[in-house]
């Protein structure tokens, strides 16, 4: 049997990392042939939804490479990219898809060799992780991640993170990154579970204990999530079973 050849996708920004990749070529630095590159103008354009879609289509690993901080052709696109991609990695860590399948780094136009090394290392890492496992279970998880990524909360928070942690918020204050990240982590977890619940309830009518068991979360947390979904009229109560209300998704 021939050895596993992972499929790798790279998003490179036009001005630095793509130029670095070109330089690797011009310098004839040989590296692993697994990567396929999509060029965008700035790493800021990379919507994490693209990445989840790639995973769903059995791409084994995704690299996002932008300019080093300070070098972004559009001033701060890469700062925003960082916040967004790292948050997406956090979300992945909630699933059974290894978060290390998503990699973010910076490559300058002069770093041809570094680019090649990054690709090699990443290819090797994905090889060790093996083929991406897309089955009904992981698919559900990725779809839930995708829901979160498309959601307003994710986009708002990752959108403002750079501004409020590195510069200043509307009060002229700076929020410590650790505080923000901690909060973000909690919110991402909640959003993810909510997305999972909603997907479950689309085709099933379930009680809180059933949900908690399926998603492997605490009862009270599952309840809290369902309540919030219900508040927004996305989930409704359908009746009672074994002393618990049963819920399903609101079809309208």
């Amino acid at each position, binding site marked *: 049997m021939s050895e596993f050849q992972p499929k790798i996708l790279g998003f490179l920004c036009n001005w630095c990392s793509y130029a670095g990749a070109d*330089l690797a070529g011009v310098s004839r630095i040989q590296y692993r*042939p697994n990567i396929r590159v999509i060029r965008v*103008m700035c790493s*800021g354009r990379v919507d994490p939804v693209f990445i989840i879609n790639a995973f769903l289509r059995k791409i084994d690993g995704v690299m996002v490479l932008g300019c080093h901080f300070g070098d972004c*052709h559009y*001033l701060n696109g890469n700062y*925003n990219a960082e916040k967004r991609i790292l948050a997406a990695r956090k979300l992945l860590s909630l699933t059974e898809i290894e978060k290390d399948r998503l990699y973010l780094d910076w490559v300058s*136009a*002069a770093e041809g060799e570094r680019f090649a090394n990054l690709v090699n290392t990443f290819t090797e890492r994905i090889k060790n992780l093996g083929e991406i496992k897309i089955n009904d279970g992981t698919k559900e998880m990725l779809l839930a991640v995708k829901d979160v990524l498309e959601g307003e909360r994710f986009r708002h928070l990752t959108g*403002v993170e750079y501004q409020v942690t590195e510069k200043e918020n509307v009060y002229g204050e700076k929020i410590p990154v650790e505080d923000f990240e901690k909060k973000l982590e909690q919110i991402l977890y909640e959003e993810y579970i909510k997305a999972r619940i909603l997907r479950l309830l689309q085709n099933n009518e379930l009680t809180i204990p059933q949900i908690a068991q399926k998603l492997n979360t605490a009862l009270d947390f599952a309840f809290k999530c369902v309540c919030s979904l219900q508040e927004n009229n996305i989930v409704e109560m359908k009746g009672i079973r074994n002393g618990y209300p049963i819920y399903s998704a609101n079809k309208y």
Partner: protein
Amino acid sequence: MNTQKIGAVLVVGGGIGGIQASLDLANSGFKVYLIDSAPAIGGIMAMLDKTFPTNDCSMCIMAPKLVECARHLNIKIIPDAKIEGLSGDAGNFQVKVRKKARYIDAKKCTGCGECKKHCPIEVADRFNQGLTRRKTIYIDYPQAVPAVYAIDKNNCIGCGVCEKLCLAGAINYKDTDIVENINVGAIILSPGVDVFDPKVYTKFGYGIYKNVVTSLEFERILSASGPFSGHLLRPYEGKIPKKIAFIQCVGSRDPQVGKNYCSSVCCTYAIKEAIIAKEHSKNGLETTVFYMDIRTFGKGFEDYFNRAKEEYGVRFIRAGVSKIEEISETKNLILYYENEEGAIKKEEFDMVVLSVGLVPKPDMWNLSRILRVNLNNFNFCRTSEFIPVDTIRDGIFVCGTFAGPKDIPETVAQASAAAGRAMALLTESRGSLVAKKKYPDEVDVSNEKPRIGVFVCHCGINIGGYVNVPEVVEYVKQLPDVVYAENNLYTCSQDTQKRIIEKIREHKLNRVVVASCTPRTHEPLFRETIREAGLNQYLFEMANIRDQCSWIHMYEPESATEKAKDLVRMAVAKARLLAPLKRVEIDVIQKALVIGGGIAGMSSALLLAEQGFEVFLVEKENELGGNLRHIYKTVENRDVRYFLNQTIEKIRANKLIKVYTNARIKEITGFVGNYRTKISVGKFEDEEIEIEHGVVIVATGAQEYKPTEYLYGKDSRIITQRELEEKIFNHSTTEFFNDKTIVMIQCVGSRDNERKYCSRICCSQAIKNALNLLEINPDANIYILYKDIRTYGFKEELYRQAREKGIVFIRYDDAKKLELQTENGKLKIKIFEPILKEDLIIDPDLIVLSSGIIAEPNNAEIAKMLKVPINSDGFFLEAHVKLRPVDFATEGVFLAGMAHSPMTIAESIAQAQAAAARATTILSDKKYYAEATISSVNEELCAGCGMCGALCPYEAIVYKEKDGKKISSVNEALCKGCGTCVASCPSGAMTQYGFTKKQIMAMVEAL
């Protein structure tokens, strides 16, 4: 005889200065000939690893400009060229240019590099400072422009192998020098400099001790594309150094080697190299800088210096190094130096970097003879403080380091200024020589099903040798919507362009994909081609199967072929979804608003008016002149009053300039090309005026700091430098005959805890005033108490004079504070004298405080109105500290003079002329063309949350009300097309043309 001026300019030297001048000229209606003595443009900046004080990657920020030069329709690059003769006058010069034989036909060479692989002869590589070797058929650096090889005839043995290998048939051994006559209206000199050759100093052993290198060699060592691939190794045996010493002022500030000037950049670049070196080495590298004075006088430099000390632990020792000895077994180096206390010390290092100065190129004397321009004592071009980019010869301008040592942003500013001066001279001929391409009308393909043509390039054997091109072509043919596919030996060659056009017509193609090299350099070419065939240029997509495929998988032809197929498939998938795009045209109001009537504002206004543009000049005081009203003589002893009055007269006499004094900006609305501004005029704001204009130049100036320290304001014997200058020139001189002892204190209100930055001009100002005082009263004892003397550039000469004339310089610093007291009505200063190692008491009759420069307090207000940033010190923040010194990120707004940072009169004028030239690139065209691949809002979906606006660095998102809800909309003139807003829109309402979600997803799905 034809007296019409020639609408073309010759730019001599293609470093960053020459590149900037060329682009500004070509973008405002002039034909440019850019000549360089090297085989490629790029100059010294192309050799740098990082740039100070932001540690930006040099190549990253420069490459886009190189590419723009290369593909600009109105810039003709002539490499390997030098000037041999000149006739004619300003407006109409005939320049005789000799172009050295290159032995390679630039039109045919594709830069593939097959030749170099097989060339048998190697020589030292000039570009890598001789640290590596290159072949005799070579290209300077991978990103070189033009991307054409050259044969180094002096070293070539003529074996003929390259000709046999070159499939493009580009080798021409019979090539000869060509002498050409070029007809231009003006000339801009930007030939740059060399670095000092330290072999002169035998004490350092450079050239003998292998581990003693110059700073430029060290720069190459640090560079990722340098000799050691960016690993910090010492040159002797590749050992990782643990202790590196930097020696400053090698070939600078030394009359003994004929270089009594300061090279201005070495302190800050040494700091940069020390920082970068530390970042390179994981296991602790010690760096030590030996210096006389640290001259970090530029914007943000002092902070950089402080960070180097405090954050990075770079060690700074104020000492002269008297000799270096090599230890023969280890090849380590022993430095002998004398410290401030006069003690001789020695210390071992394993590598030494000599911070070499900047020196004029050897043939400058010759060039100056041909052009009849003057050189100064050091063979730099002579200029004058009030016309900083003019030479003595009309129509010949100068910029960059040839006019004196300087850093990149100053070079760039001068380059724009020189371009501006040339524009003003040749205004009547603007647009007369520029080529405008005529394109056939665009065919409307919007209702057609995609019909894609794919052209796969062999690139000689560069792709074809590793990727099975015919197989790729066959594969491509069966992809959806592909109706035609073929392979070409060189898809980029002239004849293939014709072929592509034919095929578009023959097969009614409405999308084109080229699979070849990188879109970064070749996309514009192919877009042109399909435009000529009547297609919208954005119906084009490229697959990079060379730089990112065949070249990097040379030993895996199968994988490479598979990858090539994938890449083309992805490109085709995107091509199917491409839509025609347009660059939106915006009408430009060809008038300018200049805020601030100081020397910067006035200089900008004049340069614009000379080109026929109307200018509104707004000054908040009741007269023009700004800070110049308080200055009498420049450091070179020129009469400032006379110059100021002359300038104001010129302004008043120019009908195109409308001056508003006692005026305040109330409101600015609009965007590039279309601003509307309300100004209130009069002491009591009695009148409100509304004006319309296309650009804004911010020249609000700065102020002298009013000291609160050293009893200032409490004792009349304590005054500031500005007050002293008024006294010297305004009062009867007898006043000073009684003042026997005068003490000047430097850095008052600068480089302290509150204002960390250096005010740049106070050292020279103090010395200037001290020398003037001595003239009046030769018996005076003058002491200057300083932290570092920062007489950069040619001002160093002033410092030497001052010491010669007996002015006493004593150093103090924050640790050894000086004390000022009054005792029985007498002033007493106590200061620690480091050489005598004891406290010195001085009883001065007069104390002069060299108080710093502070930002104008109402900058914040103007910044808010224009939506441009200011830094923490209150000065305006330019778009890019290196390459866009007078631009703001917001298109159409520019910056000049002390609003940017403290600077001299000459520097202010150069910046002002630069800002005017940059503004001209917009004003000279009735239309402004926005980018095509910009964002756009789906108004139905937009929830009005404002996330996009918060993220946009260009203020390109505006909010408007529609049907009772607030929504975002994109200002097409301002959007630069990064796509960050699209990726963060919570409602999926944003899209980026040319990079839509659908298109990117199609590429992902095609994988």
